[in-house]
């Protein structure tokens, strides 16, 4: 079964989404990440969407769910590399990303997670 790979880097989990995800794959990713946060005792999750040219309400909900579950498990989530067209579309769609910080790239995202700059 296809899965999106999750990399462990110290106490961070890194996910780079590079495929056009169908809904089932997104659900699998959500479950896999949550399982890994517990298993690896992760303190931070970095989701790299720089290759995604589309974020619809289902993917948006997946991101919100991941952030919420991570928070319950005492981990922070950073979303990295959102494309401008995606940002514009999300606003018009009316979708708000909750509990999720954003960063321009992976380096900045990792810095944010390491500094623990979350309230």
């Amino acid at each position, binding site marked *: 079964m296809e899965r999106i790979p999750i990399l462990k880097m110290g106490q961070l989990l890194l996910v780079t989404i590079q495929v*056009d*995800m*169908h*809904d*089932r*794959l997104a659900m699998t990713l959500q479950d896999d990440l949550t399982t890994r946060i517990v298993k690896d005792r992760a303190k931070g999750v970095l989701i790299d969407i720089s290759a995604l*040219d*589309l*974020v*619809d*309400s*289902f993917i*948006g*909900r997946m991101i919100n769910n991941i952030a919420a579950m991570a928070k319950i498990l005492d981990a922070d989530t950073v979303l990295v590399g959102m*494309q*401008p*067209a*995606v940002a*514009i*579309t999300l606003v*018009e*769609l*009316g*979708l708000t990303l909750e509990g999720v910080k954003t960063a321009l790239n992976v380096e900045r995202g990792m810095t944010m997670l390491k500094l623990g700059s979350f309230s």
Partner: protein
Amino acid sequence: MIGNDIDVKVVPLRADEDVVRMRQTLRECLVSIGFSLIEQTKMITAASELGRNTLRYGGGGEAHIEKVTDGGRRGVILSFIDQGPGIADVNLALTDGYTTGNGMGLGLGGARRLADDFELITAPGQGTTVRIAKWKLF
């Protein structure tokens, strides 16, 4: 009168992967018309929402991707058609946040905001057709 080119692609929507295929087919179509990246993203996002609705709430159906030349403009008309239960209360369905499933309730209203034209034909027991269009002026 300039002749009408009939250019319609029909994509069945029976499984999650079909929605992905529909998005990709639509992307090719939008690129060929010359839409900007932002216009493409808005339209494909709207299509993704509607395609998902057809699958989840309509029991499956099909998408029609039609390239159109209409006088001084070129564009695409998308139709999402199912023979499902139909929508009982259209105004409620169009309200942001309203969902009969697990969704965020942004699909119909969002698609309407993201497209240029929006049309909804539905009735309880009569299935649902949602049609959206985007136009490029010459």
